[in-house]
């Protein structure tokens, strides 16, 4: 079993995931942000699965490692779906919205198929450094997609506080994870990454819950204030 600190971080993450779903139901925004909620519900399911493998086979077992990395890849894809739903929010009023959605779905399926093909070919290596490389690449694709969306937010002068903060939190999350896994590939200090990734995992549900609590759907921001350097 993991140490008390790792378990505590894991439990905090679970509580925060539940908190976001509860908050969005209480704020009557569950269906508006259905893909964000679906991501956390899937996260809760994968937590249950991981706990099952952890308690049955132990942390060092191959079964747990496979369960961990497969659910991690699935969750990343679910997060891509959540990201596509944010694309849809931002481009919702434009005529080319359907092309944006189509492009995003093609990218999502392409990434999923590519990852699947790579995993099938290198199945025996999934418990090694390869798994870190795959996660690093998946998070980096997410980071690039979020960065493009952020550019669109600034260009289109998106003012909805909730949407803006959801996207920024997602950008922080993908950047931190991509940096974390890239660091793991550069050095062999895997244990540090395990702690860091668990802590980073708590940040996204925390930031989204706070956004849901603090701001209503009607809250607005001035987009010019979000640029690091004023125009």
């Amino acid at each position, binding site marked *: 079993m993991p140490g008390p600190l790792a378990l505590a971080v894991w439990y905090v993450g679970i509580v925060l995931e539940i908190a976001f779903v509860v908050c969005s139901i209480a704020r009557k925004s569950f269906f508006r942000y259905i893909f964000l909620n679906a991501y956390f519900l899937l996260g809760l399911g994968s937590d249950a699965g991981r706990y099952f493998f952890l308690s049955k086979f132990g942390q060092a077992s191959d079964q747990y490692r496979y369960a961990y990395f497969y659910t991690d890849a699935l969750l990343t894809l679910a997060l891509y779906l959540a990201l596509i739903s944010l694309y849809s929010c931002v481009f919702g009023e434009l005529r080319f919205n359907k092309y944006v959605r189509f492009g995003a779905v093609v990218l999502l399926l392409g990434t999923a198929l590519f990852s699947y093909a790579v995993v099938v070919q290198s199945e025996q290596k999934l418990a090694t450094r390869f798994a870190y490389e795959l996660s690093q690449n998946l998070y980096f694709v997410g980071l690039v997609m979020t960065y493009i969306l952020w550019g669109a937010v600034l260009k289109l002068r998106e003012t909805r506080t909730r949407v803006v903060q959801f996207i920024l939190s997602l*950008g*922080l999350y993908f*950047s*931190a994870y*991509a*940096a974390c896994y890239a660091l793991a590939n550069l050095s062999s200090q895997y244990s540090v990454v395990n702690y860091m990734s668990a802590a980073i995992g708590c940040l996204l549900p925390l930031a989204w819950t706070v956004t849901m609590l603090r701001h209503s759907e009607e809250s607005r921001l001035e987009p010019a204030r979000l640029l*690091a350097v004023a125009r």
Partner: protein
Amino acid sequence: MMAALIFAVSVVTLLMFFVSYCRSLTAASSRYEISKEVRDVTGIHAFASGADFTRVMQLLQLCPERPEDRLGLRAVVYYYEILSLFEKTLARLTPSIQLWAEQERAGCANFAVVTLDRRIAFSREILAQQGEL
């Protein structure tokens, strides 16, 4: 090589998203009109300056916490500390950057003032509820 490149790009975007996230927090408080009571307590009548931040944070610690403030306030504190360090070092080289850093620090102080106002209102509500009981 690829890992090093991804690490460098990720760190840069992490910093950029962090700055923008903190700005989205402070920007949301820029239109908030603070109460007369908070203006009297803090001595800030129009807009806070960067130097007010520490004093307002001390006042904030005297009030009961609102759970929804915690993350935002923590992020802004880190942002303020990074800005202060930046202002004391690199920003000294260029006056325009120093001015930008000072404006950002003032935004952080304003965010803290708004949080103080909300906490005082929250404490009042709690006291009123206890009075009803």
